[in-house]
């Protein structure tokens, strides 16, 4: 089936060429980073994780959200998702590849990455994250590929994939739970030290991932010659509405606990995010943008007339994606380091090379996604013809 990725019109190749340029630029700056060290980024003594780890965290959510199409289709036999399940699974594959790439480029000594396998440390959450992410990648690749191959040959998928599909459902929950545990188990980082971290991660993931999927479906309808149909998009919109509402609710829970208890360690990071702390306000405009976008999107998704209008739906999905990217891909990681263990506030701004490398990894993910979608839709076209 792979050969299908090698056939496409000039728009397909033009898009891939554009992505290749972005990947190339990222690779160029990554070579500079290898030479100079991570000091090329905006990370510092106090803020030791930045854009890379934040993207990783956000993308684990995108990967996990595939379960939102897999579960209704396979467990509840919700037929409308039949046409887009493969899109969800392949989105997960691309997202996990991006996650792993972001982890590796964040390492000070990437050539030693295999030390995690050579000297496994089961006490470390990072070890378990590696285990669940690898497993999830393999699961989605095998499931997606097998189902597609059989579809091409006009056969039902073999019996052995069904257990794998069922396994992939809790597995999706596990990848984002384990990722939350990276943060939620650290003494002294009060912003992250919250039992609601994993539920919060999952809620925001189940909003941002399906939002991206809706946008991808709309793009494919317009430019990719594939129509997912109205029904699955509307079902996704309802899922996004519920997940987004839960996500906002969880944030309000955090705010209540922090501010009603009044414990400085818990209020300070939130004050830094939404009001600024001791004159440090770099993230404030971002966080308010995120909040406004989230509320706006929720309204658009809840009002039936607006939700059913696909132009408004597209806008709502864009807003959800942007809002949650700011919350998780920007605010969540950096703010865990503010204030520092010695009470100092060091703000973080990514550098140009850091942004270029980040965009390069995203572009790499989209190359993989484009090729996988090309294959999936090529098979569809063949069988439908």
């Amino acid at each position, binding site marked *: 089936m792979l050969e299908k990725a090698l056939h496409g019109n000039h728009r397909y190749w033009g898009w891939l060429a554009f992505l290749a340029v972005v990947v190339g630029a990222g690779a160029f700056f990554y070579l500079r980073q290898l030479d100079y060290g991570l000091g090329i980024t905006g990370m510092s003594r*106090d803020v030791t994780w930045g854009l890379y780890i934040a993207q990783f965290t956000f993308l684990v959510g995108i990967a996990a959200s595939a379960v939102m199409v897999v579960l209704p289709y396979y467990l509840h036999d919700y037929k409308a998702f039949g046409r887009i399940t493969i899109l969800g699974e392949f989105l997960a594959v691309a997202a996990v590849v991006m996650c792993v790439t972001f982890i590796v480029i964040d390492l000070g000594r990437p050539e030693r990455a295999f030390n995690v396998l050579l000297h496994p440390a089961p006490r470390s959450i990072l070890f378990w994250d590696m285990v669940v992410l690898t497993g999830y990648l393999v699961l989605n690749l095998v499931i997606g590929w097998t189902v597609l191959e059989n579809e091409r040959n006009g056969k039902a998928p073999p019996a052995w994939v069904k257990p794998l599909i069922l396994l992939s459902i809790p597995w999706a929950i596990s990848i984002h739970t384990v990722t939350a545990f990276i943060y939620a188990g650290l003494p002294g980082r009060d912003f992250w030290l919250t039992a609601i971290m994993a539920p919060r991660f999952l809620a925001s993931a189940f909003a941002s991932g399906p939002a991206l999927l809706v946008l991808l479906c709309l793009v494919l309808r317009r430019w990719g010659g594939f129509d997912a149909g109205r029904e699955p998009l509307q079902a996704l919109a309802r899922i996004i509405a519920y997940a987004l509402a839960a996500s906002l609710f969880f944030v309000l829970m955090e705010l209540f606990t922090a501010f009603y208890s009044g414990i400085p360690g818990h209020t300070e990071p939130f004050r830094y995010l939404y009001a600024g702390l001791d004159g440090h306000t770099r993230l404030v405009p971002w966080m308010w943008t995120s909040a406004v976008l989230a509320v706006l999107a929720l309204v658009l998704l809840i009002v039936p007339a607006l939700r059913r209008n696909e132009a408004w739906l597209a806008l709502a999905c864009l807003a959800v994606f942007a809002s949650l990217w700011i919350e998780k891909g920007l605010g969540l990681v950096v703010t865990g380091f503010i204030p520092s263990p*010695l009470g100092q506030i060091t703000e973080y701004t990514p550098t140009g090379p850091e942004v270029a490398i980040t965009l390069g990894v995203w572009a790499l993910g989209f190359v993989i996604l484009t090729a996988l979608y090309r294959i999936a839709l090529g098979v569809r076209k063949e069988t439908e013809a």
Partner: protein
Amino acid sequence: MHSSRRDFLKLTGIALIGAAVPDALLPAGLAPAWAGAPGFRPDVRALKAARWGMVIDLAKCRPDCTDCIAACHAAHNVPAFGNPKDEIAWIRRETFGRIFPAQVHRHLEPRRQAGPVIALCNHCANPPCVRVCPTGATFRRPDGIVMMDYHRCIGCRFCIAACPYGARGMNYRDPRPFIRRIDPGFPTRTRGVVEKCNFCVERLAVGKPPACVAACPYGALTFGDLEAPDSAVRRAIAGRTVLRRKPELGTEPQVYYTL
């Protein structure tokens, strides 16, 4: 040749020579390289303890003195990058207010709040940095010293996120050009790894106290076995009001401060 490889060869070269000379003639910094290896014979002078700990007497520490920091950073080739973004420090001098924020109140004399307090790795008995390290590059020895293997560290910085004391530093760039005078008795680090205080394991192994303790002209630092009732550290805390940093986190710091 890659620089870490060159260092490795240099070290093994010295080690081979070392095999032919009596232990007493060995450079101090090399002793830990063999610790635990088959056929390793510890130096007869090596200091041992059930649990190493340190007591810092705040009443004796002077605001105008940084001798302990200078001695430590010279002995361990700690780079001085000269900017806060890249800064690495095995010992740092901070204010009382920063190290003991829970002790600060509106009526604390400003002199007291701004008074000097030196801070280093606490060699926690329940160290979160060890718990989170995915490679075992950070580990705890049976005598309580939390140590690092700079050749195993992958630079993920999970340990920095986990340490509630800011005791760890990342080599965001090649540290060697920023070392004032390289002491060949201790390995330098490469870019991309984390480092921190090691309670001078290399000095303990040849019977010497930590460099900071030896350097303090006012006797403000005491080092010894916390499990031995008659040790210097136990006598230093007996009957005194003792502070430890953020004890509520359960990390069990083994560095004690007396007022």
